[in-house]
């Protein structure tokens, strides 16, 4: 059992150990969908939602697997839950807002293979969080992911107007910005004390 306070868990997942910039989870959408602020916000929202549901389901599954003593099924059952949640979100978005569905494109089904979500569920199991702590952990991780994505999108929108050499354009530039952002976020580790 883990006795961390709820706000500590939230801050930890959101800023100090930001999933994207400190754990390198969810790099694919971070590099792929971070072109526009608008899309980045919605992507962040979708990922946070999936994280929340997966965290709750993951907690239930873990308790069940401990009960029937089958830890080797952990990974397989987690991934099934995540895949079905993503499918659900995909259907909801398609129904509610076809334009957003278009904008997110291939990255929507790819949330399934977003390591941030599976990582979240695995970490929460390792740390032994209870249900409420898991929910806060998921909220923090989702907020952290959204912040990272938003910062990146904002910077990249500005970069459109900058003159950069041709060889640096594209992924290299994005990675360099990511590195600098990651350095910046290290400043938050002081909050830990």
């Amino acid at each position, binding site marked *: 059992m883990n006795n961390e306070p709820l706000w500590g868990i939230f801050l930890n997942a959101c800023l100090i150990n930001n999933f994207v910039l400190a754990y390198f989870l969810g*790099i694919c959408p971070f590099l792929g969908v971070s072109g526009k602020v608008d899309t980045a916000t919605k992507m962040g929202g979708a990922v946070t939602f999936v994280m929340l549901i997966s965290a709750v389901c993951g907690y239930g599954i873990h308790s069940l697997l401990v009960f029937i003593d089958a830890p080797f099924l952990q*990974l397989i059952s987690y991934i099934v839950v995540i895949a079905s949640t993503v499918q659900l979100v995909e259907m909801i978005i398609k129904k509610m807002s076809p334009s957003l569905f278009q904008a997110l494109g291939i990255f929507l089904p790819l949330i399934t*293979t977003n390591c941030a979500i599976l990582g979240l569920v695995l970490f929460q199991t390792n740390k032994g969080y209870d249900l409420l702590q898991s929910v806060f952990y998921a909220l923090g991780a989702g907020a952290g992911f959204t912040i990272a994505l938003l910062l990146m999108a904002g910077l990249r929108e500005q970069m459109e107007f900058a003159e950069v050499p041709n*060889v640096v354009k594209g992924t290299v530039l994005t990675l*360099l910005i990511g*590195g600098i952002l990651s350095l910046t976020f290290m400043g938050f580790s002081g909050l830990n004390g």
Partner: protein
Amino acid sequence: MSTVLEKEPPKKKDLSTDEFIKGLWKENPVFVQVLGMCPVLAVTNTASNALAMGLATAFVLLMSNILISALRNFIPKQVRISSYILIIATFVTIIDYVIQAISVELHKSLGAFISLIVVNCLILSRAEAFASKNTIGKSIMDALGMGVGFTFGLLCLGVVRELLGSKSLFGFQVFPDQFQDWIVMILPAGGFFTLAFWLLIFNVFKSKKISS
């Protein structure tokens, strides 16, 4: 109609070595396709971690490619992605226990990233783009090429980061004690910078080739 057909000459040259070599260089998963970035950045702070991660990923890639290619006519199209992920997850569970049996220390330093091989986009993309459409033999060559290419990419990062970050290589000290460690290299930011640096070199080479 005939002109359209003539424009696309059928690719007769399907030597299986071609499938192997393309993963090493022309379609290198790390430097060209930029796939499966999470482990590339996260576990490459030492060269031995990078090597272990590369080999584990290559194993899962190979086994899942074989199985998916063998079952490609039996898996219904609608549920194919879920079936692939289940197959991949099975092999990842196997390799997770194998690594734990070989070296508990290594298992600890790789941490959750072994389990996270499941969501490595590289494996799913090879399953979807290649193994589900090709014979077992070709899929094996493809998986071997991609696996070796991925391991090579991880090693490229791991070697640079370990040399500069802790002046050693595979745990053996290389630089003299006076060398000041570049702490940033073992931190997360170092991963971003090193990968950017390698991609930059690749881009410079590519642009030189085009201009000459």
